[in-house]
Every structure is written in structure tokens, then in C-alpha cells.
């Protein structure tokens, strides 16, 4: 057989066996993974809190100022460095796309761009507003702007992982 050289369970030395095998006790969960899990949860919570704090701080900047530019450029530069210098483990993309399935996305995104472009071409008057014109008043309040920045940051991280 091909697996003849593989040591079988009874031949494993007693000392090397995991603790849960000894004394015939029921299997216990190993300790290390749970500690690792706790560390991972703590790290995610810390990163989440940091992102929320940053978003709130960034939402307090006044538009058309250097600080308003920096709150976008700094995370942008950081993400570009991560993406090209030290990329995280990426979610593998599909080898191919179903053309018919993708065409639904292409049509929806294309029409959205066309709808926006037609409003932009008209100068976004009140009778034909652009998406930006509609969203801007909502972004005038700090909580909404902070939520928008947070979504933008999370989307950027999701893109880097792709």
C-alpha cells in the first residue's frame, strides 16, 4: 500500500501525544487556538475602534482645506504602500467570469454613470441634480460624514485584499 510507511496511531510515542489523549479523558480543546482567537478578536476590536476614532476626527475637518485633503491622502498613501509593498493574504479572484452574469453589473453601473454624467453635463441644476449634489447636504452633518469615511476606509481595505 502507498501509506505503509506512515506511522499508525498505536505506534505514536505516549509523551508526544497531545494531552487530551492521556488518561483516556474526553477530548479537550487545545489551549493555544483559543488564546489566538482571543488575540485576534482583541486586535480587530482595537483596529475597529481606531478606524471609528479616525473617521470621527476626519469628519470634523472643513472642506477645501489642507487638513481635509490630508485626511484622504494619508490613508490613501498607507493603503497604496500596503497594497504594493506588503500586501495581505488576498482572496483569490475567480479564473473566469460568466459574461452574461457580469453584463448585468456592466449595464447597471454604466447606466448609473450615464445618469450622473447627464446631470453633470447640465451643470447639476436643481431640476436635474447630480448624485454629488444630492449627497453633499447629508455629508454636512458630522455623524453621517464620519460613517461615510468609515465605509470608505473599510471598502479600501476590502479592495486591497482582492
Amino acid at each position, binding site marked *: 500500500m502507498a501509506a505503509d510507511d506512515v506511522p499508525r496511531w498505536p505506534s505514536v510515542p505516549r509523551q508526544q501525544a497531545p494531552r487530551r489523549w492521556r488518561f483516556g479523558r474526553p477530548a479537550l480543546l487545545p489551549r493555544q487556538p483559543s488564546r489566538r482567537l482571543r488575540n485576534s478578536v482583541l486586535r480587530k476590536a482595537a483596529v475597529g475602534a481606531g478606524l471609528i476614532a479616525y473617521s470621527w476626527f476626519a469628519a470634523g475637518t472643513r472642506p477645501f482645506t489642507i487638513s481635509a485633503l490630508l485626511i484622504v491622502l494619508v490613508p*490613501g498613501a498607507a493603503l497604496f504602500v500596503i497594497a504594493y509593498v506588503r500586501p495581505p493574504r488576498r482572496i483569490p*479572484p475567480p479564473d473566469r467570469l460568466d459574461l452574461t452574469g*457580469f453584463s448585468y453589473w456592466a449595464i447597471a453601473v454604466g447606466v448609473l454613470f450615464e445618469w450622473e454624467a447627464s446631470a453633470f453635463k447640465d451643470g447639476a441644476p436643481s431640476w436635474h441634480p447630480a448624485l454629488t449634489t444630492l449627497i453633499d447636504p447629508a455629508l454636512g452633518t458630522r455623524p453621517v460624514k464620519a460613517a*461615510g469615511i468609515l465605509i470608505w476606509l473599510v*471598502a479600501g481595505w476590502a479592495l486591497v485584499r482582492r
Partner: protein
Amino acid sequence: MATRVITIIGFAALILALFVLEFLARRKDSRIPTLGDWLGYVMRPKAGRLLILLGWLWLGWHYFSR
């Protein structure tokens, strides 16, 4: 005024369509790729990756800096 309402309804319908597509794409055995799938596919070549990341940066600048 009616034109403004039609424009807003158009935007709302198109954004809703994107959410519906994502929902349909997540069904089992769906032929429609998810947003993440097709973005990942577009980002396979370096040029595609750069363009998508620049688009993300532009969105941030457009909505939060100006």
C-alpha cells in the same frame, strides 16, 4: 420639480438595482458574480488594480475633501 423627482427616483432605482444584483449573486449556483468577485477579476492585472485603487482614492477626495 417633476424633473428633479424623476432624477432622484432614477438614482434610487439604480442604486437599489446594484443591491439586488449583489443579493442575487450570493444565491447558490448563481451565474451573476458578486461585486467582490468581478472587482477581484478586474484587479488581477496590475493596471486594473491601480485603476480601481485610484478610483477609490478619487471617491474619498470627491466626497470628503471638497
